[in-house]
């Protein structure tokens, strides 16, 4: 369960989030949708305790992320890049992440297998392609077998097979009762995966509901999105 409650954030002197509130529930994939720069990543960084909001709270299972002991066993997070220092091998990176939360080294080989990186385990992260970096980031997120997944643009850089795999993985995770929150600017992709949709635009939540409700009378999620955000398809963002 993820609860974002009246979160506002000013970066420098520019407000980037205005009174953002929404929930992501267990057993469902919640899609966090918005154009580039709308505030998706900023919201997720606040949720993960990386940045601080000016006002409001962001809770995972009722607690702020910074207060969670051994957080990898509760939340798996994937943000920009893999998080691995470029000089480290995939395995070395995962081994220190596992050690930090007291997880056994055997988990490292298991998650490498899950994301399909076993044959690249000894390769340095700096030599990884974008798609491989995303897989390595996801492997780290899965180390603690968490009940909550927070993924920022997870299909970004994946090849078609990778995207298909990710879609199945997210659906399976939700079916096993996990809370899945993923951000994306790819509407077609979200329409395939999400149960609930939260639409953010210019730092404000413009709609939050079940996928069917959000699409409403529109033909597709994409049509609904452009109608909601008042931006024109192909126009200046």
């Amino acid at each position, binding site marked *: 369960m993820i609860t974002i409650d009246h979160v506002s954030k000013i*970066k420098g002197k520019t407000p980037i989030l205005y009174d953002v509130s929404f929930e992501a529930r267990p057993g469902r994939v919640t899609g966090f949708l918005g154009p580039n720069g709308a505030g998706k990543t900023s919201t997720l*960084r606040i949720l*993960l*305790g*990386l*940045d*601080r909001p000016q006002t409001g709270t962001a809770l995972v299972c009722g607690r702020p*992320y*910074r*207060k*969670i002991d*051994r*957080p*990898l066993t509760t*939340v798996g*997070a994937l*943000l*920009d*890049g*893999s*998080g*691995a*220092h*470029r*000089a*480290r091998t995939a395995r*070395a*990176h995962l*081994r*220190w*992440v596992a*050690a*930090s*939360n*007291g997880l056994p080294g055997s988990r490292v080989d298991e998650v490498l297998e899950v994301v399909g990186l076993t044959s690249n385990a000894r390769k340095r*992260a*700096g030599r*990884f392609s*974008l798609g491989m*970096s995303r897989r390595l980031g996801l492997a*780290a997120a899965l180390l603690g077998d968490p009940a909550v997944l927070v993924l920022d643009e997870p299909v970004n*850089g994946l090849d078609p097979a990778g995207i298909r795999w990710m879609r199945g993985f997210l659906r399976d995770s939700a079916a096993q009762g996990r809370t899945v929150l993923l951000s994306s600017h790819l509407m077609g992709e979200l329409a395939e995966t999400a149960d609930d949709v939260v639409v953010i635009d210019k730092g404000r939540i413009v709609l939050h509901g079940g996928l069917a409700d959000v699409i409403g009378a529109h033909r597709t999620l994409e049509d609904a999105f452009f109608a909601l955000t008042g931006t024109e398809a192909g126009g200046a963002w």
Partner: protein
Amino acid sequence: MVSPVRAELRKLLGLPTARVALVLGTLLAPVVVLLNAPYNRRALAAGTLSDPTQLGLRELGVGLIGALVLGVVVVSSEYTSTGDDAPGARQLTATLTAVPHRLRLLAAKTVALVLVVAAQAAVTAAGTLALTQALHGEYVPLPAPERVAAAILYWVLTALLAYAITLITRTGIVPLTLLILNSTVVSVSYLLTKLTDLAAYLPDIAGAHMFLRTDGFPVELAPVTAGLVMTAWVITLLAVGAVLFHRRDA
């Protein structure tokens, strides 16, 4: 607390830069002792070497560069970009999602750094002093154990100083340039002592007085006073670094 320390040790010792710093820092001083041996032997025999009792301890100094680099990279590696695909992405994100409590993380980093540098300093000191004994034992007595301990403490405090400065700057370039130049090419701190007596209280000048005596200094700090002065510098800078790290967005 044990798990984060173990993770930080793994992270530090897994970095190529840190490994180079560890090896070079450990070997530099003994190598210098070997290279200087012919000159020192002649000077000792002729009685022209100033204060020969300090010979081994003095030659330890060159290895300090390893401790400096270790102190810097333990922080700077968190802030270097992880790849061209995602220029803003850094290891710090992975670090803080794994250990989100800022001060617990810093405590783990500090413990890991102190363990590594203390071990390195102990090995280097033992090697350098043993070599000095073997080469010049007839002229140079073995230094008192407390002076060797003070030298090891000086290494640890120097690494912590570099670490604290990097916490503030968030990049390794400034502290590395500043500290390495100051400790090798031109000692700005030493030049300042020519201008003002207050420079004797700069961390590197004061710190060295924990285990070395220098004649002709305007302010001669007793070893314990010197240790306290350097510790005060380290604690102050670490406190500033910790407050900034706690308050800043990652």
